[in-house]
């Protein structure tokens, strides 16, 4: 029986699907390029302390003699107002940005998925209450909410993360709820209910595992936007605090010096841009690949 399950005849549609995905990915050079960029960024984030030319500059010793030097062979991105190597700091910033974004999105998922699953699986007034609260959160721009929350919680990176998570979870709640409503009607859930499985076990044992995949995909597509939001909060002084080598904070500090030291604001900014662009392009590309409408041929 199992032999038949994995025979080439049975797997043909799946193999064809996979081939189509690879073909679409190959056709879209931009998506491929962005995928490589994202992989590189993750590598930088992991290896930053080891490959940075001046690891001691990352968090900070001042070298007043090398203050605000333009890019050169010694400091390829130049130095900042304390004589620190901008390249080392920008490199390490990758780690901070990715870490912040992943944690913030993770936290948002941790709030959003259970709420959405409960709302969708339970229905009735529980659903109504959860979804109305979600509507309230969804009805204004996430950055505004994040700024307000971060301002009130107090300026530091943890709070910024929390603020982003609080303004982001409703998107996932809405997505999961939609999934949960359809899964609720499936046979295996009805069967589980029929044999008297407790409700919370149905929600977390049957419904959550079955609607988690699309949410994770959506969440990874959101990383670009979250990185940009985190950098914006830091720029406003609501996120990372000195001497953290956070990109938004670096651009913010550079404002006092940039007229005579263009490199100081240029490189952290371009780092944000490339990172967000890569994630957005990858998200766009993946969406197109998974969209049944573009899949038809």
């Amino acid at each position, binding site marked *: 029986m199992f032999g038949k399950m994995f025979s080439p005849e049975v797997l043909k549609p799946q193999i064809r699907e996979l*081939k*189509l995905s690879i*073909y*679409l990915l190959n056709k879209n050079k931009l998506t491929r390029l962005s995928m490589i960029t994202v992989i590189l960024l993750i590598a930088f984030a992991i290896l930053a302390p080891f490959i940075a030319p001046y690891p001691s500059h990352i968090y900070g010793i001042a070298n007043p003699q090398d203050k605000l030097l333009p890019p050169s062979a010694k400091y390829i991105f130049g130095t900042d107002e304390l004589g620190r190597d901008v390249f080392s700091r920008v490199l390490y910033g990758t780690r901070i940005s990715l870490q912040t974004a992943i944690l913030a999105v993770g936290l948002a998922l941790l709030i959003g998925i259970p709420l959405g699953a409960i709302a969708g699986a339970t229905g009735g007034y529980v659903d109504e209450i959860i979804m109305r609260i979600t509507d309230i959160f969804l009805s204004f721009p996430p950055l505004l909410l994040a700024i307000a929350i971060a301002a009130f919680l107090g300026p530091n990176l943890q709070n910024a993360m929390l603020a982003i998570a609080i303004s982001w979870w409703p998107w996932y709640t809405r997505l999961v709820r939609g999934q949960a409503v359809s899964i609720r009607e499936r046979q295996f859930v009805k069967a589980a209910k029929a044999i008297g499985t407790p409700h919370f076990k149905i929600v977390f044992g049957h419904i959550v595992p079955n609607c988690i995949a699309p949410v994770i995909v959506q969440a990874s597509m959101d990383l670009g936007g979250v990185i940009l939001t985190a950098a914006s909060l830091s720029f406003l002084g609501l996120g990372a605090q000195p001497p953290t080598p956070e990109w938004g904070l670096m651009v913010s500090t550079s404002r006092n010096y940039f007229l005579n030291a263009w490199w100081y604001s240029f490189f952290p900014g371009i780092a944000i841009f490339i990172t967000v662009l890569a994630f957005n392009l990858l998200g766009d590309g993946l969406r197109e690949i998974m969209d049944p409408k573009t899949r038809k*041929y």
Partner: protein
Amino acid sequence: MDNYFEIKDLKVGFKTFEGIKKVLDLEFLSICKGETFGLVGESGSGKSVLALTILGLLPIPPGIIESGQILYGGEDLLKKREEEMRKIRGKKISMIFQDPMSTLNPVFTVGEQIIRVIRNNEGINRKQAEKKALEMIELVKLPDAKNILIKYPHELSGGQRQRIIIAIALSCGAEFLIADEPTRNLDVTIQAGILKLIAELKKELKVTVLFIANNLGLVSAVCNRVGILHEGRIVETGTVKEVIKDPKHPYTVTLLKAIPANREEKIDLSRILLRRENGQETGGCRYFDRCPERSGQCSKSSPSLTPVDGSHLVACFKAFERSGINEQTAS
């Protein structure tokens, strides 16, 4: 046979990630002025692709026109520039689509849609166009024409919409009408009304009709001649009488048996349902897998459309054998 409308060696394909998939491989098709020609084929046989190709509306890519000619009044439509084609569409050749529910633009009133087409094609002022639109709606036998003009499509029934669509298609004096399964999504009673209307308008306006359907019974009721389309190839063509009374191709025989009224013996459904794998080219007859009469020769080469008697043409080795004709192999 005059040279009103002819298709020669038309090969159309679609680009897919697995290579080019052949959709149409029409050796020959001719339609005389003033007749109603029925084109019958199951879904996926390339009927709609043919209709779009004639009007130059096939999306390219993914579509590819590999070769062939579509001769209309002696001129090859495939060689025309988009600007020239635009002048032919609506004014000379028009089309009725299958689904009346989605063919009208949902955000404009019916009147606005007819008037736009009339004004655009005839360059007359709004008042004149409005008058013409009213006439057209009366022509398709919709009562209370004035009231219909200010309605949005979603306020009308399927039958009413299909009548409007026919009115739009014929509003600018088209003399060749392609009707792509115009009754497919309608109730049976409404179907009859639409068919009757098309037949009447055809007489009244002297239009030539290419009637596309998936049902041989329907076609035999309204058409002079028919062509049987199977996987992009015409396998048999002739007058309705010839094809219905004396089907030569095994596929036509199966199609006729599939009409419930004609079903005297049980047919082997497994053969009808059997379909070839996508894009698999064997070089032989495309009906080989499903054919009850196949022989070794059929898997090796493909038969060419050949006259068997008078205007009756067929593409089948077995039919050739029976009629005593030399083998004709398609290129």
